Structures are given as C-alpha cells and as structure tokens.
C-alpha cells in the first residue's frame, strides 16, 4: 500500500450530504476485475453528460480543481454500497484525503486499505475548510498525518483524530494481511478451541 505521511495540495469543495458510493462510482464501472483505471469515472453521472462530454459546473471539471488531492464534503460521505471501487476511483483520480463531518463505516474502513486518509471533523470546522477549498487552485491545504493537523491556505491549523493502529499502517504503508499472517498461531489456537466448543460451526 502507498504510504501517507504529509500531503499539500488543492482541496475541492463538494458541499453535499449523503454522497453515496453509487454517486462516487456508478454500477456499470464495477464490472472490472482490476483495481486501477477508475479515476476517469469518479463521480461519473455528476461529472459527465450522457454523451461523455464534461459538465463544466461540476467541481472536478473546473480548471482550478482538476488536480485536487483533497476533497471536502458534507456529512455521511460514502454511504450505501460496500464497493471498494469507490476509494479505488478516488485514489486513481489523485485524491488522497477526504474531509467530512461524518463517514459511512464501510467506506471509512475501505479508505485506510488504500492509502487514503478520511478525516471526520465537526461541521463548523468542515465549514471553514469548505470555504478555504472554495478559494480555488491557489489555496493549497496541508494534511500532516504524523502531527494530526490540517493547515489551511491562510495558516489556520486544525487538529484531527485518527485511530493509532490505522495511522501506523498508513504511515508505513503496511499490508494488513501480512500483519495478520504473523498471528497464524493465534488463529490456529482459536480454530482448535472452536472445533471443541462449537464443532457445528
């Protein structure tokens, strides 16, 4: 997994609540058997007309935000389907950090498996960051995972929380499966116990 340490980049404002994973990546793009190449279809129905031409109003189509690396959004971001294609598409587009007042659980979890940092902050703070993001390409935001703080383009600093284990994995780019494999003796022991206590399972 790609490491996440510090990121300084353009933040795109998307002030909508309940952005669901069908919006992030519609169903027709789930038919891939790969993880890559989904960025071009990120927010497909909001971003393109049916004929494939861009909708100029959509934030990621505006010149200032085409290279956004941070997304600032409304509450309950990533609700709905468990599709990991959603974080895959976000990452493939080039966004490495999503900031919102709240996230849906499965999406939140999926982000950490893909080198994306989701940050939940109080609505008032997100409102300030949204305003900062609305300034466009010259307003670059810095997200520092190690020190757990966001610095806006005008120097305001906001602290954020992150689970220590997840932070460690993101900063080191660790593969969960490799870590769990090291616990194989524990899993063996559990399975022995299970066979004795609940053999039907």
């Amino acid at each position, binding site marked *: 997994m790609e490491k996440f340490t510090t990121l300084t980049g353009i933040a795109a404002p998307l002030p909508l609540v309940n952005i669901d994973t069908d919006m992030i990546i*519609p169903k027709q793009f789930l038919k891939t058997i790969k*993880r890559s190449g989904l960025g071009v279809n990120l927010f497909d*129905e909001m971003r393109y007309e049916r004929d494939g031409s861009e909708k100029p109003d959509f934030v990621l189509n505006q010149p200032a935000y085409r290279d956004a690396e941070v997304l600032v959004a409304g509450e309950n971001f990533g609700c709905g389907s468990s599709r*990991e294609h959603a974080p895959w598409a976000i990452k493939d587009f080039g966004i490495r950090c999503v900031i919102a007042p709240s996230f849906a659980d499965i999406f939140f979890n999926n982000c950490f498996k893909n080198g994306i940092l989701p940050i939940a902050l109080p609505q008032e703070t997100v409102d300030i960051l949204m305003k900062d993001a609305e300034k466009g390409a010259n307003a670059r935001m810095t997200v520092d995972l190690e020190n757990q703080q966001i610095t806006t383009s005008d120097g305001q600093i906001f602290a954020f929380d992150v689970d220590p*284990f997840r932070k460690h994995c993101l900063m080191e780019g660790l593969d969960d499966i490799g870590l769990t494999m090291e616990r194989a003796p524990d899993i063996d022991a559990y399975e022995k116990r299970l066979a004795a206590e609940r*053999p039907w399972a």
Partner: protein
Amino acid sequence: MTAPKTLYDKIWDAHVVHQADDGTCLLYIDRHLVHEVTSPQAFEGLRMTGRKVRAPEKTIAVPDHNVPTTLDRAEEIKDEQSRIQVEALRKNARDFGVEMYDVDDVRQGIVHIIGPEQGWTQPGMTIVCGDSHTATHGAFGALAHGIGTSEVEHVLATQTLIQKKSKNMLVKVEGELPPGVTAKDITLTVIGRTGTAGGNGHVIEYAGSAIRALSVEGRMTVCNMAIEGGARAGLIAPDEKTFAYVKGRPHAPKGDAWEDALAYWKTMTSDEGAHYDKIIEIDASEIVPVVTWGTSPEDVLPITGVVPSPSDFTGGKVEAAKRSLDYMGLTPGQKLSEIEIDTVFIGSCTNGRIEDLREVAKVMEGKKVKAGLRAMIVPGSGLVRAQAEEEGIAQKLQEAGFEWRMAGCSMCLGMNPDQLAEGERCASTSNRNFEGRQGYKGRTHLVSPGMAAAAAITGRLTDVRDLA
C-alpha cells in the same frame, strides 16, 4: 458475576482471536459469502502473493449482481464484462476449492437469500460478504456485515478481520402492526426516524413484540436495511421461529450436533440490564405503509402524505432535498398517492423471498396489472422461484400481468440488463433510491411488496389498505 451483555457483546466475545492493547481485535469469521463483483481483485491478490484460501469449507460463492434474469440461463451472458466477472468467479472458486452455486444451479440466487436458504447462516455466527446487505443475516442472531474487497482478501487468506468493536444500539418496536403494514414499513420507518447516518458506528439490535411477531423472512427484511440506517449490522435474537427455519437445511447441524448447537443458540440473547449506547422506541401500532419520495432511504413518508418542500428541512438537507426533488421530478405539496409510475419491481435481497411473493399474490387476488405498465417479479433464488411455482403463485401473478423472471439482483442495482430508462419511475421493493441506482436518471420509490402490488394495479403509488 459478569456484567450483563448484549447479543452483540456475546457474539463479539466468542470470536476474538487476539486483542491488542488499543482495543483492535482480530475477529474470527465463521462464514464468508462471495459474489462476482467484489471478489475478483481479492482472489487476484491471493494469486500474486501465493496465498491460499484458509478455510474454503467456510466459504461459498454465487454469481448474482451481473446475472441476467431472462429465461435463457444455459446461454452465455451477452455483456462481455459481466460474462468475464462470472467466469472469473467460476475459475476462482475452482482454483481455490470454494463451493459455488452457478447460474444454471436451481440453488443459485441472491447471496443473502441463499445463505439462509442453504443453512449456511446460523445463530451466533460471524458472517461477512463483500456486499453491504450482508446485514440481512443478522435476522438469525448472527453478526453479519458488509466488507470491502481488501477485507474479502483478508478473510480469504486468514479467516479473520481486523476490527474495533462498534457501539450497541437498540431499536425496540412494541405492539401490533396494523393491517397492511409489513416488515418493510418497519425498517423504512426506523430509517426515516434515525436518518441514514443514525446508525453509523453502531450495531443495531431490533427487539420488541412487533419484531418477535415477524416471520424469519420479515426479520431478514428488517435487518437487510440496517445499512441504510448507517449500521453495518442489524441483529435479532434467535427464537423458536429461527430454529425451525434453520432445521433440516442442507448445511444446518444434524443429529447430536443439532442438539449441541441448539443449546448454544438459546444463549444468544441480550441479558436483562445489558447496556445500549442508544435506544430508539417505536410504537408498532403507529406505523403506516410508507414510501420514499427522494434519493436517500431516509426520505420516508406515509403514503397518505405529500411531497415535502426543501424549507421543511435544515442544514445540508435543504440543498439535498432540492436536488432530490429535481432528480425525482416532483413538486412540493403533491400528494404521494398521485405519483404515477411506469415500472414495478418486486425482488431483491430485501423482498425477494417466498413470503414477499405470497404478499404480492394476496393483494393481486382477482386484480390485474394496469395496462401499459411494466411489472416484473424476480424471485430471490431458484428455490424461491420453484416454490412459488409449486404454490401456484407464479401462474397467478403471470396471469395478472407480471413478468416472471429468473433469480438475481436484477433491477435493484441494474448491473445486468434489468434497468430503468431515463426518466422512468419505479415502485420498487428494493433497498436504495439513490440517483442512477436502477438506471441512469431512473426514479425509484421504495415500498413494501404489498404496496408495490397496489401500485401495479393502479399505476400510481397507492395505499395498499385502500384496495383491501
């Protein structure tokens, strides 16, 4: 004496393989269900790292999302990408030794319908699937939730998940449901009350006399949509109905093992005085048949109501409501029962079970689908389809004007040819009314099976009680 535990606490505690100092746990997974959309990259990951499936005997595979529901099952899937995904599942199941219910197997169906149907789903278990509606299996008192593809790979390789415990939430529905009100109305009403983020970070336990009174099928409908309320998992304590449902199914315990299992399952209830972080109480007698008007499952209103105005909301929901009304082509103040529809979809992991089809048949008794309307029934599994045919329901519904199709996810998410055309409006027994969910610019109103049947008769959203 140990502190009283919730059902969730009990299942959790019984599955902890390892707990780190910060509370991060390695949780053992009893059953892993796999479908064609969220698994190819996971199997590919195993291949690339030379890993095996740790417990293939606890893993089952079934294609459902991409599978066309037309009658030509023997033929290859025409859409190339869909065909490749199903073929990949077939190859992965074969290479890694996983049992698969293939498209031409009568046991094939929506993953959350066939898990319980085949007896894979049992009380007290942990069950996962790369699909958010895994919450369905919670109806058996199993801790069941959706996971992403990275976690699918993790479970395949290790039969465990890295997890932190969620909070406990209790939704208590006491009293008797009025006539015409079903499990779907309960679950939608709860979401309408708590919002789609209300359950974030929680596991919901549904309890109370109205939940106990539901059939196991109805309980699956309730738990299925826990995820629409933001909770990864919904739970209902198992009881005699649950045990009777499981007994005798192909993968249920048999003989002495059954007795041992039963004794254990009977302990799978929340203790008196157990702590919940959040409690919601609902009076069942006040629940009415509901419909959704917008593009979020929380946009729930009684069928007797009117389309709301953005000014009825606050915060970010004002803008969201404007957007929803525009997308749905609705005007504030318009009566919900005057909204005309083009399509009726009956099926999905929410409402594709035999009881749902019986409910539809009951409402359709002596009535016809309105001329010009497209009305389709997609049984949740090949076995549900066969049972409905045996009970004579299938024939009656076809005579009434419904298309009678093969099992699959179908129009619930339109990854297969069953989709709404632009601007088409559907009364749907599925679970999500998101923009584009059932087809590009398609408009979805979520309803119960009985309400869907009522809409099929009149051609507009209709109070099923008016037809009784």
